[in-house]
């Protein structure tokens, strides 16, 4: 059985990323936006892992550095989620809705 080529994995990653982006733009509840962001991050991780497998022909060190980056991204994502959810809780605990459209003060 032939393994799926790198291009297929990358295309899949692109699709996930796009869906995540659509989610970010489309969802109005802050939590759901956050979920979509996590989806995007994971799509990027998938692409990194696929490329790391592709570079295996260049040696272990090169290939493994791809996976190491994924590892680091994971860690960063964890930290980001923690802080982000803290912010969300801080903002939205007292408001009635978590509609991001209400946060429309950022304008010229």
């Amino acid at each position, binding site marked *: 059985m032939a393994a799926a080529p790198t291009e297929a994995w990358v295309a899949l990653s692109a699709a996930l990323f796009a869906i995540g982006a659509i989610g*970010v*733009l489309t969802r109005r509840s802050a939590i759901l936006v956050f979920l979509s962001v996590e989806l995007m991050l994971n799509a990027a991780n998938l692409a990194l892992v696929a490329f790391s497998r592709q570079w295996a022909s260049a040696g272990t060190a090169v290939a493994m550095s791809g996976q190491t980056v994924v590892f680091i991204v994971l860690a960063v994502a964890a930290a980001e989620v923690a802080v982000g959810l803290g912010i969300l809780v801080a903002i939205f605990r007292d408001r009635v809705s978590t509609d*991001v459209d209400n946060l*429309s003060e*950022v*304008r*010229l």
Partner: protein
Amino acid sequence: MSDLAAWLVLAPALALLGALINGLFGRSLKEPLPGILATVLAGATFVLSLIAFVALQGRDHAVVDVMLWPYLQAGGFDLSLGMRIDALSVLMMLIITGVGSLIHLYSIGYMHGDAGHARYFSLMNLFLAAMSVLVLADSFVLMFVGWEGVGVCSMLLIGFWYQTKTNADAGRKAFIVNRIGDVGFLLAMFLTAATFGTLSIAEANQAAVTSPFGSATLALIGILFLVGAAGKSAQLPLQVWLPDAMAGPTPVSALIHAATMVTAGVYLIARTAPLYAMTPLASAAVAWVGAATALIAAYAAFAQTDVKKILAYSTISQLGYMFVAVGVGAYWVAIFHVFTHAFFKALLFLACGSVIHALDGEQDIRRMGGLGARMKVTGATALIATLAIAGVPLLSGFFSKDAILAHAFTSVHLDGYGRYGLYGVLLLTAAMTAFYMFRWYYRIFAGESRMDAKTAAKVHESPAVMTVPLAVLALFAVLAGYLGLPEFAFPNWIAQWLQPATLGGLTTVPFEHPALWIEWSLILASVVAAGVGLALGWWIYAVRNGAVFTGLAEGPLARLSRAGAGFDAAYRAIVVGAAEGSAGGVSVLDRDLVDRGLLGLGSTATILGRLAARLQNGFVRAYALAMLAGVTVLVLVVAWLGVRT
């Protein structure tokens, strides 16, 4: 420069020096310092001319060529700037600097107290420089430099009192009409260079005589030079600027528009005499243009009421005589008339100026009269000049005018081009000249006074600085003619002097030599014509006090005459009207298309701005979409590039 005659080359430089000093520092110099400086320098140029004249005596075919600067050498074409000092140019220089110096002296008195005193003298000196360059040039290019220079000075001096709009307009008109003529000059230069391969006058003349007689190219060159000359010398149909040019100070009119600049056209044709001798067609054109101009200008002078305008039309008419002379091939005769005309015309203008000065600016002859009693010198010299221009025997004008008439009658060069017609026209014009000049003199200086008491009390003779030049000019107006006595019976110095310089031995223009009785009859006819004109004038103005033909004086003929034979009206309708019409059309285009379009652009910017403002709506999601869209565009570009390779 071992040759004394070559020192004449310095003349333009001296005049230019005066122009620079007066132009740059004149305002800080107190009157009459600028005037004295200018006159002294003008006098110096006259001295140089005299020295050159004396130095050239006794030399056969005396020519001195002074090369100034090798200007352009391109392939086979060689153009260097140099000056040619021969009999013709020295004579012209004598006239220019001599009459010019007298007029400079006169101007010290005339322009006394004027705010632009220094500017005036600077311009007058500049004019002398330019005119000297024109006359001394040995190539068409350098001559054209002088040609344009005098045109500029003319414009600046006509519009000297530019604070009045009509004066500035007159200056502009003169320049523009001159420019039209200059196109002809330029085209002729191009054609000369193309045909003969040179722009040096002497070489062009030599090449011309080896060309086929009467060829079309020669004729075309001749006619194009005629266009240029007509512009500068105010011949039909480019004469419209000269009457308006009377807006300038009277000494300017005397120097530029009577004695010197306007004769540049005649000089040009005399310089290129060998070329014209080879083309009867162009010569006939020259002659007939001159004759028509002489007649129509004389007609226009009849009903003028401004003292200077009468003299302006008289100048145009006399220039017509000179053109006829060069047309029939009598080149020295034309220069002879330039010579005599310079004296009596300048005198007429200066006397005119004296009167205007005395009457505090009055220029309408209907408000003058009887001034001869109070202004004795002015009146006497004016009378001499009037008689001279009328062609009264033994005065200078008689000899030169008669020479023109005789040569027109006996021309072989223009046989078949209506030489007898030319003669007839000129004879009639002579009678008309006598008539209207008498009118001019009588209405100003004789008869009853038509001035009001206040003006009459102010009348006084002009100061010596103004009357001395008058007297000197009057003397020459009487004596100058004796240099050119009729050839068939008397010794004629000027013909011998000028012949080598004009035709230069390259070719000859034949004239008939009819029987003696015919020659004398011609002279008699001239005298009779002058007499008839004077008598008629006497009868109408002196005896009947202008009461005869009053109906005629107000009728359509008179109005046409006063309007300068309708040329100004015609030009206004055709040229100015067309220009204004197209300008109006373009302005409508400009207003509706361009301006509206630009305003539309402005409102487009506003609309675009409003649209763009909608982007700043404050919604985070919209901003995020914008960012994503930007990235997508980049991705698509990369994808497209990747697919292409």
